[in-house]
């Protein structure tokens, strides 16, 4: 008797949160969980252009181990993620500091912020085309045209430094993300902290080091982690910029899974690569979770 009453009470008490979460959960189940299950199943098939589910055991994973491209792709993935992340976070921080602390004039800050937002709000196709035009190795490339004005021979950029190119192009986009987050964090530091520091005779450097950085520690960690995961799993810009080439010099794991699935139509193999990626990404999230102590953010409800 008592137990059933408790249950009914419990259900009534918990029905509202579940009701509010329902659309969210339904979307996630349909468009995350089911696809993940499908991908996981698909990774054990040799589905090709005929889109048939023919199971082939762990062949795809064996193939991945034998794939001569794999070591270089993994190396590229690491280099790409590491350096782009560095640009994203460090340069984003520099931009945030410059546009929201050093430049006190709101209009100038806004101007620079807007310019830096351009890469982000440009359609990827357009942004990448601009890069391609800029760095085209023919004498007609923008950079080469500029070099020609000062009598320098045309240089070539993308194919000799494909990794640098994808890191820079992605870095510029990611930097604006950091910039926005950091700018707003810096702007939310109480003005009197800066005044106090100045009264105490702090140098600019020490204001940055001792006041701003500690105050935006959280956003810093957040951006680092968010971008890490994003970079690990995104490939749109690489696809458009170098297509992973020349050869596999700028191919990263996520792009490889796309290429395998949608260019050579090896859906099974592509899914297997995706699955590996998912596992890696999950591993990272778990580590970050530990390091961050994410639990702190989960306050409990204060209404009963």
């Amino acid at each position, binding site marked *: 008797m008592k137990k059933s009453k408790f249950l009914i009470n419990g259900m009534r008490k918990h029905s509202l949160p579940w009701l*509010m*979460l329902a*659309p*969210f959960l339904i*979307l*996630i189940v*349909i*468009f995350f969980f*089911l*696809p*993940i299950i*499908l*991908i996981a199943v*698909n990774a054990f098939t040799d589905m090709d252009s005929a889109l048939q589910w023919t199971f082939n055991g762990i062949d795809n994973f064996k193939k991945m181990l034998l794939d001569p491209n794999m070591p270089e792709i993994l190396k590229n993935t690491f280099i790409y993620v590491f350096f782009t992340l560095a640009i994203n976070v460090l340069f984003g921080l520099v*931009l945030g500091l*410059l546009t929201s602390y050093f*430049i006190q004039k709101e209009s100038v800050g*806004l101007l620079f*912020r*807007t*310019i830096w*937002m*351009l*890469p982000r*709000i440009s*359609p*990827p196709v*357009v942004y990448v085309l601009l890069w391609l035009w*800029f760095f085209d190795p023919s*004498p*007609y490339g*923008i950079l*080469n*045209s*500029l070099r*020609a004005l000062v009598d320098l021979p045309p240089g070539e950029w993308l194919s000799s430094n494909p990794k640098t190119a994808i890191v820079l192009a992605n870095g510029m986009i990611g930097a604006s993300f950091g910039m*926005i987050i950091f*700018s*707003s*964090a810096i702007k*939310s530091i109480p003005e009197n902290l800066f005044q106090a520091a100045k009264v105490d*005779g702090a140098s600019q450097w020490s204001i940055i080091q001792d006041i701003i950085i500690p105050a*935006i520690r*959280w*956003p810093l960690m957040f951006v680092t982690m968010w971008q890490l*995961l994003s970079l*690990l799993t*995104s*490939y*749109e810009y690489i696809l458009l910029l170098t297509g992973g080439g020349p050869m596999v010099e700028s191919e990263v794991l996520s792009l490889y899974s796309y290429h395998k*699935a949608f260019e050579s139509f090896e859906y099974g193999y592509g*899914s297997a690569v*995706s699955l590996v990626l*998912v596992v890696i990404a*999950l591993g990272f*999230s778990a580590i970050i979770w530990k390091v961050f102590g994410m639990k702190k953010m989960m*306050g409990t409800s*204060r*209404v*009963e």
Partner: protein
Amino acid sequence: MEGIYEPKMEAPKIKTVSKWNARIPYIIAYGTLGITTLPIILMYLWLLMSSFSTQMKHGVIPVEFTLENWRFLWTNVEMVGSVYPSIWTATWNSFVFAGVLTVLEVIIGVMAGYALSRMEFPGRQGIMKMTMMLHAFPSVALLIAVFFILNFMGLFDSLLGVILVKTALQIPMTAWIIKGFFDDVPWDLEWAGLIDGCNRFKVWYTIVIPIIKPGIAAVSIFSFLAGWSEFLLLYTFVLSDDNITLSTYLQKLISDPNLVNYGLLSAVSLFYMIPVLIFFIFTQKSLMQVSAGGGKGV
């Protein structure tokens, strides 16, 4: 520090030195900003110029001003035989796509964010962890699986289907941001509402929602921007020209690398970007809100 106690005679000298010292960081700041921003300015300036000229001499010098590249605004562009759909259809579709996406995203995100931030129920921690981790999934690698699902739902080749997919892919992030805003609403306010005679649900929409308006604004902007520039999903799951959006329109222009009309492409690109740019300038204050409170929310 010691300067304060120095004799007054010395003061002017110190002042001039410190004036320079004080300026140096600013000089460096503007310098760095200027140099690093230059390439971006050049790139987009080039885009602007090439949209208004027939040809770019040596790649950089515009020759002959023309509005020809902007003709898509008043006619349906015809390129080597094929007539492209009206840009206004594409604009309208993009608008509908981004708009519906935003509305869905906000409604679902706000509901979920509130439940996660403010309510106690079994499984809450689990769902929060899941939300946080979901964005780690290489969603684009799920494309093929998403196709099977859309197909099963009969939503292949419909804007609605893509809207649902896109909403789902973004909802963990949106819910998380919104949750952050809810976290910052003082409990007092909510308690006051309860005591003043509201039930939990009523408190939510009469008191809490109006307070997190800046958060809703920020999320709306994010969603709208994301919707406006979405490409891959639309490109993969939408076929008919009736459902063309600006991004797929743009893709049409560059589909054949032999035939790209760069002037036209530049003009359409600008046309595509301008609303977003204006939108950003007017809403950037709200966008900045996202990490108010030390970025806890994000």
